[in-house]
């Protein structure tokens, strides 16, 4: 649902009834897209809106927040048993901004545990189902954030993207999702998984809404030392662009069939060429090594002492920490922490971690070269249609599904997923990659593609 459609509903029925209706839909939903629904709080805010006491650019608009983004006094679990009782005592910077603009936080969206996954199957709270086929996944790791926008269980949502975690569910759920340039949105209050790769970003049902949500969340925050201190303003334009198809980013026949049709449509208004990125051969391995290494360090904080899941009896510290972590973490999280510990351990640092950071340099060089020639780059967002639940049982097979999305995070660039219709009744997404801080170009191009495609 677009904000404009929501506003019409609110105009006709009042915000309270509109929110109550949405809460009923969430309650009856089979998607499992929320971990926590903020029923009372949302209804109170709606009443406030109806009394004319809620103001701002998102006044009265229901927004879902991924459950790894801190919300004061509201359960924030990261879809993990180890944080299943955790209520932050502060709001994330993006949540402060949402509240400042009058948004109604309707709930905390389900996700892969600590955002480690591509299908939301690693959630301690169970898989999120795809709104277009309940036997399929909604994508991950921001699966809940994607599903709620597609199924009108929220109007907007926030996700986080470490290696494709906004773009994948956007593609699989047929909605828009943007991974901003690294540093555009403050990560203060985002529970970290891989700090050097991840960004919080918006998900929505149309480009204008996506742009508005980005305007709200982007900007300076001194509490994130990697914050670029830049604001974002959406300025519509209809420039003719040079568009590069990335040869190394492909997909199966179903996806490529649709991608090629979309390319033909883009050619009506833009100049299209091809570009080769030789370093991408190494990007997936480099991405996982960096992400796992950062995870092993970040997740060392979960020890059952200051917050989170704890055992009843305190033991010697080694046994206590090891038992808390054994019981509190799920299998994929353990796998990544352990592989990260391995990659960083004595004797392997140069072989894995340092090498991966060198690949990062090569990936950035390839992108820099490509952007000398092209304004934006395109590819299918995901190499396949939404997977069946349980289809990616082997971890390495799951990792490989991220092949088109991870190079963007290695380089810290912005990328957008635009829905381009359905194949076999399942959504397909087009990925649009831009140069640093070119979100305005991406959004305008995305809007044109949507109009050309639906027109």
């Amino acid at each position, binding site marked *: 649902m677009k904000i404009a459609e929501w506003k019409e509903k609110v105009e006709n029925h009042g915000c309270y009834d509109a929110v109550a209706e949405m809460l009923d839909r969430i309650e009856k939903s089979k998607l499992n897209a929320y971990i926590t629904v903020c029923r009372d709080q949302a209804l109170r805010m709606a009443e406030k809106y109806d009394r004319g006491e809620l103001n701002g650019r998102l006044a009265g608009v229901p927004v879902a927040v991924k459950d790894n983004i801190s919300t004061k006094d509201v359960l924030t679990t990261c879809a993990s048993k180890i944080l299943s009782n*955790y*209520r932050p*005592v*502060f709001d994330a910077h993006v949540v402060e901004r949402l509240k400042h603009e009058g948004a109604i936080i309707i709930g905390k969206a389900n996700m892969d545990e600590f955002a480690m996954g591509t299908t939301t199957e690693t959630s301690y709270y169970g898989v999120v189902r795809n709104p277009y086929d309940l036997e399929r996944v909604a994508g991950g790791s921001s699966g809940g954030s994607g599903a709620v926008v597609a199924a009108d269980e929220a109007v907007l949502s926030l996700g986080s993207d470490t290696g494709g975690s906004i773009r994948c569910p956007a593609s699989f759920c047929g909605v828009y999702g943007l991974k901003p340039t*690294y*540093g555009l949105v403050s990560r203060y209050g985002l529970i970290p998984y891989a700090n*050097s790769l991840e960004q919080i970003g918006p998900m929505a049902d149309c480009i204008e809404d996506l742009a508005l949500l980005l305007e709200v969340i982007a900007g300076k925050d*001194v509490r994130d*030392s*990697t914050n*670029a201190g830049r604001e974002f303003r959406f300025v519509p334009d209809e420039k003719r662009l040079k568009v590069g198809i990335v040869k190394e980013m492909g997909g199966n026949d179903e996806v490529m069939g649709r991608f090629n049709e979309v390319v033909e449509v883009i050619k009506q208004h833009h100049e299209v060429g091809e570009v080769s990125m030789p370093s991408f051969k*190494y990007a997936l*391995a*480099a991405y*996982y*090594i960096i992400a796992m290494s950062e995870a092993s360090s970040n997740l*060392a904080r979960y020890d*059952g*002492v*200051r*917050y*989170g899941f*704890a055992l009843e009896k*305190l*033991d*010697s*510290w*080694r*046994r*206590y*920490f*090891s038992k808390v*972590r*054994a019981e509190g*973490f799920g299998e994929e999280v*353990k*796998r990544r*922490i*352990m*592989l990260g*510990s*391995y990659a960083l*351990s004595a004797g392997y640092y140069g*072989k*894995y971690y*340092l*090498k*991966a*950071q*060198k*690949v*990062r*340099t*090569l990936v*950035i060089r390839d992108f820099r070269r490509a952007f000398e020639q092209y304004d934006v780059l395109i590819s299918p967002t995901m190499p396949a249609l939404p997977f069946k639940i349980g289809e990616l049982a082997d*971890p*390495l097979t799951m*990792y490989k599904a991220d092949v088109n999305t991870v190079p963007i995070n290695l*380089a*810290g660039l912005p990328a957008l997923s635009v829905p381009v219709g359905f194949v076999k009744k399942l959504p397909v997404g087009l990925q649009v990659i831009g140069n640093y801080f070119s979100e305005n170009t991406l959004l305008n191009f995305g809007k044109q593609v949507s109009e050309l495609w639906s027109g």
Partner: protein
Amino acid sequence: MVSVEEVYHTAELAKIEISGEEAEKFRKEFESILDYFNILDEVEEDVEPTFQVLPLRNVFREDKPGECLSQDEALKNATHKEEGYFKGPRVVE
């Protein structure tokens, strides 16, 4: 090749207790994942690593005292606490 001993050693580094069954499962998975990571052996050594993508250096803020968490707030999420302190496990073994 990854041995079960290496898996146990890594689990100890990561402070995660694992069972014998888990160790064998992780061993197999680590072997195939690390084998995939070996593709990086092809990458030339003579490249500067990139640890972070922003051209930021020494980001400072003004050293102004601000609001901080109260003791109650800081302890709110802890299961084990005593007289206004976190209560941790024994560190002397």
